[in-house]
């Protein structure tokens, strides 16, 4: 009995290996978990036409994706990496050194970061400065001297007396997340720069400035809630005192449970993120290896599908998923660059 079962299994094993030994015929995509929900929709639509296989997408995080992407050229490396920030100079150099010379950069749209609480509680009106003072590890000394002190605040009302006297409790992503990077850069640094002498520090001592302005407090007022944004939404609806930090698409899907706080006078909505008035939004990119075009079947067509007006346009299906589209000019400019496969330069 076990003999025949074993023979069948062995035959299956050998058979499948032989038939699939030839080169790769599907697109491989890695990268940001923020771009993942958008890229997967495009990939699925692309695959539905039946002409090409559906691309395979792994959510490795922006940094992890870049590492895989830049590890070399050739069919056993990914063709595309998604990123919720622009490629860094160091990553670009590493790519060049490893033979990934021509890279096509595609800016696809924007994603807002919402700072939200349960609909049971009142909507908060915050400024970048409030958020910085409430969440930074060290803050400029409140007595006005040019030194940093460990963050003394425990209640929102201590940060700004117009805010409620409730405990500062913010659920957010861990340091490995692109959302956290963007939060540090846009919110904390944004609030940090509003103090004049700290702003001067940026010019004189960049690394100290970054260390001071990008560090989130670790004394329990900022709770690392993992990469799972759904979990944060669930925790918020259970705890109406807490605030949560997550992508706009999750806010849009859960509007009956959570509400976005007003930041610097702007509510996170489709319109305010699109016109840039909502201060906490970030660009979404993907990067393509030009050398793989023509080698991997369907790569050009995938790019064409992504940059099609029905996809990333103002009425495209990506906007249904919560992505904020680029302006018309930007779209046509990038669309042309993609169609001509113009490689990027670092400037």
């Amino acid at each position: 009995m076990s003999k025949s079962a074993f023979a069948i299994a062995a035959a299956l094993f050998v058979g499948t290996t032989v038939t699939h030994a030839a080169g790769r015929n599907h697109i491989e995509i890695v990268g940001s978990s923020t771009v993942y929900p958008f890229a997967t929709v495009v990939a699925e639509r692309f695959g539905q036409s039946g002409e090409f296989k559906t691309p395979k997408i792994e959510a490795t995080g922006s940094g992890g994706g870049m590492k895989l992407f830049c590890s070399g050229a050739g069919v056993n490396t990914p063709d595309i990496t998604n990123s919720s920030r622009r490629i860094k100079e160091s990553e670009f150099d590493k790519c060049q050194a490893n033979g990934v010379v021509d890279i096509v950069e595609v800016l696809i749209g924007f994603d807002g970061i919402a700072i939200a609480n349960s609909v049971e509680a009142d909507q908060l009106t915050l400024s970048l400065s409030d958020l910085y003072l409430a969440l930074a590890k060290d803050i400029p000394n409140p007595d006005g001297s040019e030194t940093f002190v460990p963050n003394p605040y425990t209640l929102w009302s201590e940060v700004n007396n117009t805010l409620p006297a409730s405990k500062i409790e913010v659920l957010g992503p861990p340091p490995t997340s692109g959302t956290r990077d963007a939060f540090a850069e846009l919110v904390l640094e944004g609030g940090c720069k509003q103090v004049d002498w700290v702003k001067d520090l940026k010019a004189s001592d960049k690394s100290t400035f970054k260390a001071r302005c990008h560090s989130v407090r670790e004394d329990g007022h900022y709770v690392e809630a993992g990469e799972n944004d759904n979990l944060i939404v669930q925790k918020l609806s259970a705890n109406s005192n807490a605030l949560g930090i997550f992508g706009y698409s999750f806010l849009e899907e859960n509007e009956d449970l959570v509400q976005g706080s007003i930041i610097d006078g702007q509510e996170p909505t489709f319109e305010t993120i699109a016109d840039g008035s909502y201060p906490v939004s970030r660009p979404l990119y993907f990067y393509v290896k030009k050398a793989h075009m023509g080698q991997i079947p369907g790569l050009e067509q995938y790019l064409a599908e992504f940059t099609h007006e029905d996809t990333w346009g103002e009425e495209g299906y990506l906007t249904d998923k919560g992505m904020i589209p680029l302006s018309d000019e930007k779209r046509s400019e990038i669309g042309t660059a993609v169609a001509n496969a113009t490689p990027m330069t670092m400037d």
Partner: protein
Amino acid sequence: MNNTTTKRNTTDIVKAGLAKRYARERRFKLMGVAAVSISMAFLAFLLISIFAKGLPAFQTTYIKLDITLEKKSLGLPEEPTAIEISRARYDKSIKKALLAQFPDVTKRKEKRMLYQFVSSYASRQVADALVADPTLLDTTASLWVLADDEVAALARQADYTLEKKDKQTEITRARIEELKAENRIETRFNWLFFQRGDSREPEAAGIKGAIMGSFYTLIVTLVLSFPIGVAAAVYLEEFAPKNKLTDIIEVNINNLAAVPSIVYGLLGVAVFINFFHLPRSAPLVGGIVLSLMTLPTIIIASRAALKSVPPSIADAALALGASKIQTITHHVLPLAMPGILTGTIIGMAQALGESAPLLMIGMVAFIVDVPTGITDPATVLPVQVYLWSDSPERAFTERTSAAIMVLLIFLIAMNALAVLLRKQFERRW
């Protein structure tokens, strides 16, 4: 006299202490009962919450639309082939059909909202219907198409008063009522869930891709770890000399069984992907990594099974002139087989539930196409659970629980098989 007093005293002491001893016994039993009931309560809580959340995923909602399918407006030639029909886009025809169903919608924003009434998978369904029956072209066909997940959730609810009221849901509800009155909306069993791979639309997402991925991965694991594990066990038990080296090997095998599985994932990525250039995300690599993980379990179980075969049987075979290899293959191994198979199945069940090492080798990915071989990109059941739990759409919560149910059913079936084998074939001496 003296003697009787002491006797009475002893009895008295025993009698006096008896209540205390009984109480102690009762407390001990009670603690045991409490421990069992706490664990049962946890299990019940887990199962009930999974089932309560997951059951809606097995139902899906269909809407009947009168779709006008003109070859000309679809961009099809006069005599279209099946491939051309399959590749045409039917979104526009479906949108027109929706507008025809609800003629009072005129504003652009309202139209956009209405278009989200049906799933984006509907286009595929229309294409499939046309491939099956091309005569529907150039007619107005009444076709059942999949509704959007949010519409499905609303249509299932009997009691509307519980939900919070906002304008958009009110409109959607009114439309559902309208469709219900015309018998154009229907809740059916969700066969798609078992027929399709992953999807970004919860209503069109299925578990088949993950099931097939798990199947191919486990096949690779079985083909590698069973023969290697049994061979290693037979050698160590029957042939290996007793010395320092075999002692070290034995200690190592026992320790390997306790190594965290993510370590095997790291090994897999370094050796099989970076060095041997095997494809990422393939069940082939997943199976190899998992077989590294299950090997110690199988070796330990097989050795125990071989050890439990009485030496008298082997001695009898040898005495009758059988060679060592004949003794093992004809007598010892068949008698040990139920135990070996039980160990193997338990090892396989462990491998089925494993996701951490697969993270490293790229099997945590969005894969739509159902894999057809061990080198196709694939994902497995526990990974699918993880991926769905991370998706923003609310209906994926149901899909997550449903996927857990499928995974549990497979695990229970495998463990039941192991128990059955043991009960049926194991012999006690």
